């Protein structure tokens, strides 16, 4: 997986072609809606069940891959934000490469639902370095479920990536990948063994502590939690308390949901030491992003962390 160069105009052309052909952007979602609920499935490229691995590989074309995973909550509480992300995430690779924020970025996209109540609570694409991301985003089924208990299946996604991600950056160069979870609710009290069996296919017998799952994940990824405004629980203190215990400083509140890509790109740029926050924000200003201020505000706290990292010689402490 993950060959070919990103061409921003390809997305524009594809979108125009779809419009011309009258094809809905919600094609996969529309197809699922005609099926009984219990027959709805993730598209093959996004199906987590029985999947052996999600690989971010170095290659001749991409010798120093930087794995970046973006998993977003698609339950009802997220309002229209998942649709916004489905539209905007194709911009991410362009932002990263044009700005030179990371070497050979490889992007994986996926969706998180409620493993207790939804039919398709986990969808995980492949690491890609071209506009196949666009196809996978379109194939995400926006189920818009959720249990109404302010908890979603984030830990199931964390477990999947902890056990399935194979990162050359880590194995060959000792560099972890980046994971951005975009959501607005808490983890379930535990990772249910039944969910792992049912949606991933691992014969797990015991429920797992959520902390343990994120500890496993931490061996492979720096995990960020982004909560965008216009979701149901944006301002709730319990949400921040919950996620700060898991991701620490990497809990980011974003005032402008349209700016998720910019936030992710600049975060990666900062952590890779490719840019300063000011340079990144200047870049956004230059390309006419309307989310510059929101991104600056979201990153204010992280930026202080980056300054410390630079002072220690540009190498980030493993537990930042």
């Amino acid at each position, binding site marked *: 997986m993950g060959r070919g160069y990103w061409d921003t105009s390809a997305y524009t052309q594809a979108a125009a072609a779809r419009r011309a052909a009258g094809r809905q952007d919600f094609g996969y979602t529309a197809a699922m809606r005609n099926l009984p609920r219990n027959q709805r499935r993730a598209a093959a490229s996004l199906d987590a069940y029985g999947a052996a691995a999600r690989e971010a590989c170095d290659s001749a074309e991409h010798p120093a891959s930087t794995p970046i995973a973006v998993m977003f909550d698609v339950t009802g509480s997220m309002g229209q934000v998942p*649709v916004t992300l489905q539209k905007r995430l194709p911009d991410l690779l362009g932002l990263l490469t044009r700005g030179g924020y990371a070497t050979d970025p490889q992007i994986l996209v996926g969706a998180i639902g409620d493993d207790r109540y939804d039919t398709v609570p986990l969808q995980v694409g492949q690491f890609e370095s071209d506009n196949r991301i666009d196809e996978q985003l379109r194939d995400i089924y926006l189920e818009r479920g*959720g249990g109404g208990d302010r908890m979603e299946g984030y830990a199931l996604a964390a477990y999947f990536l902890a056990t399935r991600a194979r990162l050359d950056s880590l194995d060959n160069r000792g560099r972890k990948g980046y994971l951005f979870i975009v959501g607005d609710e808490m983890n379930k009290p535990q990772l249910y063994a039944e969910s792992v069996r049912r949606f991933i296919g691992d014969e797990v017998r015991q429920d797992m502590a959520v902390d343990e799952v994120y500890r496993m994940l931490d061996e492979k990824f720096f995990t960020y939690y982004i909560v965008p405004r216009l979701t149901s*629980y944006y301002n709730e203190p319990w949400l921040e308390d919950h996620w700060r215990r898991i991701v620490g400083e990497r809990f980011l509140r974003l005032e402008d949901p349209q700016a998720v890509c910019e936030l992710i790109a600049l975060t990666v740029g900062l952590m890779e030491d490719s840019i300063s926050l000011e340079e990144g924000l200047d870049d956004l200003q230059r390309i006419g992003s309307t989310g510059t201020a929101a991104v600056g505000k979201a990153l204010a706290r992280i930026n202080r962390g980056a300054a410390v990292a630079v002072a220690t010689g540009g190498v980030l402490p493993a537990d930042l």
Partner: protein
Amino acid sequence: MTLTTAPRQTIIVAGLGYGDESKGATVDYLAAALPDVVAVVRWSGGAQAAHNVRHGHRHHTFSQFGSGTFCDVRTILRAPMLVNPILLVAEADALESQGVVDPLGLVTADANCLVTTPIHIAMNRAREIARGAARHGSTGLGIGETVAYDLAVRAHAKAGETIGNFAAPADAPSVPALRVGDLRDQAATVRALDALARYADPLLQAVDDPDAVCGTVQQLADELCASAEDIAIVDDLAGVLGAAMDAGTVIFEGSQGVLLDEWHGFHPHTTWSTITPRHLVGELEAAGRRPFVLGLTRAYSTRHGAGPMPTEDRRLQLPEPDNREGRYQGGWRTGHLDLPALRYAAKVAGRVDGVALSHVDMLPFASRSGVPLLVADSWNSRREPLGSPTHHDLAGLQALTRTAQHARPDLMPLSTDPCEVARLIDAAVGAPVVLIADGPQRSNRVLVGEMGSNRRAG
């Protein structure tokens, strides 16, 4: 026969009161709890439905969309349901802001459904304003006018003739009433609207309605046709429905309650719609299906607007998050559990296979508030004062209304234990309580399934 999580069930949800029996919340719960739900079918009423669904942070008052929408279950609009395309688009906007993706993509409409237009709504309001104090409890959404106009056209009614209890404002035109299928053809839509506008004109001119909609027929046609563009309109609705029922569980979501049925309710405080599922059951059985009729009732009575309500008690002050006074509909009323009315409702429904009992949390609440809920087992010592429903003529319907108006309910204490109340209802309806709700949320509902097992949905 019982309600289970078995695949490919056909479930008809019908209110056994005057409306407001938690149809929305029940359909939403079933769509979440039954694994293979594939469609919700609206088959009666129109945009006047107000079916509330609450799940976690989400709340919507479903009007034309099926109440399974939060579960991403599609909606089929089947004649004789009346479709108001402009309000449908407005509802889609509201649903989109509640996180539903491409809501209109969920809708399939029967080409044969009559269309309710702003002209019908203006006629409805004009008549209610003219009636003044003698209001019928109309929701002001042009439901009766839509049906009456179609009847007038088909009967070639002359000006002044009475259609139901409506006077025809003008000679009925020869152009058929507008149907959803016509919206695919701009010219046909303009023709139908022109005829309707001419028919309505004497009525609208006679009343000063500050909210009256003014616009050209051409503008109206443009708006209606554009509104219909994003939904699937099908000529072979039976085929679509059959395919859905072959694929999975289909829920038929009734509107209002059988005590408002046009032929069995307390005339004229009824709706222009057949609420009883009798015909639907017959049609489904003829097509080889075995529908389960789920009758809905609260643990007490409620009624919106005017009309007989024997157990009404103005001292009852129970919290009601969703029902507000409607300008044309009148006030919100609460009364004790009315078993004679329930017995009659069950007979009107024709067949009830199970009962969903809601609002049982109000039993202890009322008790604590000092005005406990009571139960009437009889009116004037008669347990079945309304007799058996027949296909009434107007005189018969008026006699029914008189009986209800003069009813003196024989009230007795009512247990606050939902199981005790369920037993009373079970006996009155002649079918077991299969679903109990103790609050407005999806998570407040529980399916009392086979062998005492139960299942909660999220």
